[in-house]
Structures are given as structure tokens and as C-alpha cells.
């Protein structure tokens, strides 16, 4: 059995293999070969217990370009919204013969539970679980950074990458910290102390509370979504103060290195963590991140599902 549950399941070579494979997938889908027969006859279930149009569509497009049969199983109107347990859902998917389940879930660890249980035997791909991880997002981010900030592919050694904002609640940040440092980049987390996890000192990153002092040295800056409700939970006083110190606006962007890029996993809060002119600027690769997402997810599906067992990711 093979899964992609956490970036921590990947070796550096495996991560690079995914990124290299994604290059060829991008080439194949950019060129004349829109549809590949690779996963013909495989059934992939998109199990999205939490709404996420962007990630679901990206995985669906990736699966369909590889000719897999895709079944969408969403929260609204499905048995999930009627309180069906994860176990019963998994047993159903097993009975339907799912070769893989791509799961988005509000509970941290739900994909691990699915993979480790005896409830189903297919591959499990974590498409974002609670505040834990979002491995495919980190892989597409690394793919995007590699494309813009390195000359020859390979790893990300020597690059300086900033992740700014609500690290505490961000599964994107957790996966990116693991992956970017695995690939040799220097990662700096930039956030008010309230939005950094307890024990973050043990992570392989630098910490800064001063965006302005770090920004000019970065090759890529990744802005995280800040949810409005965090204000009522006392994480920061108000949106204005947050934007003043941790938002990326035009003045701040002007201090960035030449050729450095601005990233955001989406969906954006324009005006809060990023201003509209920055999001739409030439430095912004935010739209490109979305299209890279399909290629990276094709690579993940190919490497997990196309061949015989023992590939990338956790074996269990």
C-alpha cells in the first residue's frame, strides 16, 4: 500500500523525483498530448469532507488527464453531511473498489487514520487535513520556486524563502517547512508570536517578527491566508494593525530582490495579508501556482498509482 500523507514520509530523492516528473507532466499537457492513458481503469475518489473548490478541481483535472475514473464525494448533500463516520465512508469506498482516495478533511490526521486502519486498502492522498499538512500544495509551491529561482532544477539549496502569517493554523506552512528545508532552502517564518506554534523553536527554520528586515533578502515570499475570525480569538488586535506589520503591500514589495517572487496558496484576503496591486504584479506567481498544481498532482498520482507497490511515500 502506498500513500502520500505527510511530507515527512518523503526522502529528498523522492521529492525531487516528484518535481522532475511534474516537469514532464507539464510538458505533456502543455503540448499536444492533453490526455494520457496511464491510469485507465483506475478509480480515484475525491473525498472532500471540507469545501475546497480549488484543490478538488486540481486533483480532478490531474486524474482525468491521466484517464482515471474520478468520483467526487463532497460534504454537502452527501452522507458525510448526515453524520456518517469516517469508518463507514471508508468501508463504502472500499466496497466500491476505489484504487485511491484523495481526502480533504477538517480533522488533523484523518488521512492517517484512513491509511492506517483496516477500513480500506487503496492509496490515500492527503489533500489537506485540519491544521496538519497539505503535501501536494507544498510540492506545487516547491515546483514553482524551483522553476523561477533555480537555473538547473535539482534542489533549492541556498535559496531564502519567507513564510508570512498564520503559521499556527496553516497546514500549507507545516508541509512547506518540511519540504523546503528537505530541499535545502533556508526558511524564515515571519509572524506575530501569537500565530506561531508552541515549540516552533524546534523546527528547522529561522523565526522573525520583523517582516521589513527579512524581506529584502528573500528569493520567494509566501503569504498565508489570515482568517478574519482569528481577530476575535485575540491573535492580533485588528486587521489594520496586522496589515501594517505583516501585510505585503507595494512599498514593501519595492524592497524585494530582483527576480524574487510573491506566492500565495489562495484563497487570498486582498487588502489584509496582501494588497491587490501586489497580488496582480509581475512578481506574483499566484495564478501560475494553480496551473503548476495540476502537473504536480499528475506526478503524484502517476508515482503512487501507475506502477507496482513500493514507491514514494509511506508504506504501511
Amino acid at each position, binding site marked *: 500500500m502506498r500513500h502520500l500523507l505527510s511530507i515527512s514520509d518523503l526522502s529528498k530523492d523522492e521529492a525531487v523525483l516528484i518535481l522532475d516528473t511534474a516537469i514532464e507532466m507539464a510538458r505533456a499537457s502543455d503540448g499536444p498530448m492533453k490526455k494520457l492513458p496511464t491510469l485507465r481503469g483506475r478509480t480515484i475518489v475525491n473525498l472532500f469532507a471540507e469545501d475546497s473548490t480549488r484543490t478538488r478541481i486540481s486533483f480532478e483535472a490531474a486524474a482525468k488527464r491521466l484517464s482515471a475514473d474520478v468520483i467526487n464525494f463532497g460534504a454537502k448533500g452527501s452522507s458525510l453531511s448526515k453524520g456518517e*463516520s*469516517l469508518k463507514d465512508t471508508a468501508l463504502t469506498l472500499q466496497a466500491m473498489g476505489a484504487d485511491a482516495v484523495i481526502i480533504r478533511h477538517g480533522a*488533523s490526521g484523518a488521512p492517517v*487514520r484512513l491509511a492506517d486502519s483496516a477500513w480500506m486498502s487503496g492509496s490515500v492522498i492527503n489533500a489537506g*487535513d485540519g491544521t496538519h499538512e497539505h503535501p501536494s500544495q507544498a510540492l506545487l509551491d516547491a515546483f514553482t520556486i524551483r522553476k523561477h529561482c533555480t537555473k538547473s532544477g535539482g534542489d533549492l539549496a541556498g535559496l531564502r524563502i519567507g513564510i508570512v502569517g498564520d503559521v499556527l493554523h496553516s497546514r500549507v506552512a507545516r508541509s512547506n517547512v518540511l519540504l523546503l528545508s528537505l530541499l535545502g532552502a533556508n526558511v524564515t517564518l515571519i509572524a506575530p508570536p501569537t500565530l506561531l506554534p508552541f*515549540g516552533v523553536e524546534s523546527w528547522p527554520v529561522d523565526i522573525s517578527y520583523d517582516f521589513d528586515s527579512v524581506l529584502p533578502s528573500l528569493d520567494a515570499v509566501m503569504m498565508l491566508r489570515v482568517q478574519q475570525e482569528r481577530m476575535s480569538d485575540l491573535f492580533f488586535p485588528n486587521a489594520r494593525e496586522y496589515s501594517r506589520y505583516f501585510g505585503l503591500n507595494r512599498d514593501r514589495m519595492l524592497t524585494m530582490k530582483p527576480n524574487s517572487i510573491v506566492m500565495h496558496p489562495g484563497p487570498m484576503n486582498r487588502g489584509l495579508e496582501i494588497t491587490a496591486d501586489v497580488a496582480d504584479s509581475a512578481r506574483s506567481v499566484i495564478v501560475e501556482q494553480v496551473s503548476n498544481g495540476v502537473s504536480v498532482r499528475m506526478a503524484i498520482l502517476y508515482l503512487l498509482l501507475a506502477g507496482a507497490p513500493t514507491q514514494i511515500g509511506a508504506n504501511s
Partner: protein
Amino acid sequence: MSKSYILKGGSLPNGTKSDIAIKDGLISAIGTSLDANGSKIFDITNCVVLPGLVDLHTHLREPGREDSETVLSGSRAAVKGGFTAISAMANTSPVADTAGVVEQVFRLGQEAGLCDVFPVGAVTQGLEGEKLSEMGAMANSIARVRVFSDDGHCVSDPLVMRRALEYVKQFGGVIAQHAQEPRLTVGSQMNEGIVSAKLGLKGWPAIAEESIIARDVLIAEHVSSRLHICHVTTAGGVEIIRWAKARGIDVTAEVTPHHLLLTDDLASSYDPIYKVNPPLRTQKDVMALREALAEGIIDIVATDHAPHPAETKECEWQEASFGMLGLETALSIVMQTMVDTGLMKWEQVADRLSIAPARIGGYSDHGQEISVGKSAHLSVINPTASWRVDRDLVASRSRNTPFHGMEFPGVVTHTFFKGVKR
């Protein structure tokens, strides 16, 4: 059936080899070459005889959740674990906040007849932390309640806690506090630390326990009342209790077997079998708790036996219930963590699992030194044997033991309650 027995070949907690004769519910003789005189003889060579174990913290789920445990099934689990007295926590449905409920639970315990079941009364009505429950009526009921606790919830309002501590003095009661500052633990899932940060599970910080312990020992000192701290889990909590005791504050404290053995990194599997409140902590905390128990800073081991049906554990971590079984494995875990490590002798085990909890709970018939004329509540353990926990073989109605498949030293071979083998 013969009502007189002789336990032959065992040792007393102090290590003295001695036979014990039981007659009509009492210990009738202690010594060597006791006259059999028609008694049934149990060969307990290599075994240690302890005064019957007393648990101050047990969830029996009846009334309300008889699918996960009943007074009868919990009594069976108790006897299997060597306990002759257990304390039924108040968070049942309905809550044990009136004389009617505690008398019902007490009677169910009498009917089961396997061990004594002492109901714990709720401190506040409905465990809501606002209005005091009728503690006087519970104390004067046939259940004679002396231990009051909102366990599962913290009595977080300092004024309510002060009044409760004062109020129970009139009948010699004790408030057993579940120390958990609620505002610091909204939605908390596991110990706040390196592991929770990695797993993306909301942290339950040690300070949420320590700040309540600190507050309550000061209140107890101010109003000269007796305070008991349930399930201490943190090294910091231990230090505060040490300070309070040195200052002469009347505080006692308990630790659970699972907090003496397990650590928060087990949550990495996201298997909610390890989800418990208060949560599993770090190895540093585990070592501090063991030392505190050996020293007597922590007075007793209490199980916090918390049965849950399968569906509340076969799910996502954050959806799962808090709690794990404890009665059947408690003594073995204490042996492994405290006796085999050289931290305690059997004499201290007798104190921490029987004598001290009986004293705190006011269970005067239990927790006696083994001597002639006392009630024959006895537990016999064979420390030279070992066993493997099998969740399918537990006496409890639920199977949520985190120790499934683990091998432990020490087999409880006999439990005598009121002079009868149960």
C-alpha cells in the same frame, strides 16, 4: 462453601513471609503453620498480599451510558484488577448531584456485591460550575458521600471553588478538583508541545493545569479546607503541590497509571486510543510524576478508568472521546514503573493504592494494615508472573485500553472482598 480460607506461602507488603487466615469476613490469624481446621487453602507461594486496592477515581457510566459500562461490569473489572473499593465519578446522566442519584449508584454497587462502590457527588449542579449541588444531602444519604468532584470539568470559578471548599468542611468532605483552566484549553486535543505543533492538534498546555492547582492550594490554605487534586500530569504541578505541602496546606494529589507510563508522542499515530484528558505529557513529566509518587508528594494512584464505546474511538482524533480503561491494568503498571524501577517497595504500593486513597475518601473499612480483626479486603499479586493485555478479554464493557498487546509484570491472582474470593 467454606467461609474460612488460609492464604499460604505469600508475603505481607513489608516482605515478611506469612500465612493469612480469613474467617467470617475478617482476618482471623497471621503467622506460620496456621491450623487449617477445615479452611480452604490457597497456595500463594511467591505472591504478595496487599490490602484491597482502593480507586478514588472511576467512571462507571451508570446511570445513562450503560452501553459503555455498568456498576456491575465496572465492579468486575475492579475485582480483576485487585480493587475492593472504587469511587463512581459524578459525570453520569443524570449527574450525581442529588441524594437520589448517589443512593441509586450506591445500591447498584451493593447489589453487584463484588466490591464497595462509593459514589462521588458533583460539586455543582449539572457539573455546570455555577450553583452548588446538594452536597449535604448526599453526605447524609445512605451513600455517605465524602468526595465531591465535577471531574471532567474544572470548578473554574474561584468563588464557587472557595465556597465548595468551605461548605464540605461541615461533614468532613473533600473537593477533588479536575485542574484545567477552561479558557486556556478551548478545543484542546493533546499536550501542547513539539508533538502537537507537528501534528496540527490543538494544544492543552501544562500551565492550564498548574495555574488551577496554584490557585486552589492558596484558596484551600485561606479557608483551611481539604483539597484533592485529580490526575496530576505535569512536573510543574508536582512542584506546586510540593510547595503547598511544605507550607502545611491540606492538599492531596493523585496520578493515573497511564500518566506514569505513556507520553504524548503516541499521538503521532492519530489513534484516539491515546486521547485522554488531561493529556499524555512528555517523558520529563512522566519521570517527575514517578519521583513524586515515590516521595509521597503525590499521595495516591487513581485509575481515571474511563470506558467508551468503540464508535467514539474508531474515528478522527478530534472527534473522539477522551479517556481510557484503567482498572485491570493499574497494579501491573505501578509494578513496572515504580517497583521494578526500584522507586518503591510493596509497602509503599500498599499505601499509594489502598491505605492513602481510603483515608482521603473516608472509606474507613478499607485501606487497613493487614492485621488480625480487620475486614478481609485483600489483593494477591504474583510479581514473578507476567501477562499480555488483550482488549477482547477485558471485564469492562468497553475495550478502549491503550495497553492492548503490551506485556506487563504482576498478575492479580486473587481478590478477597469481605473475606470472600471474588
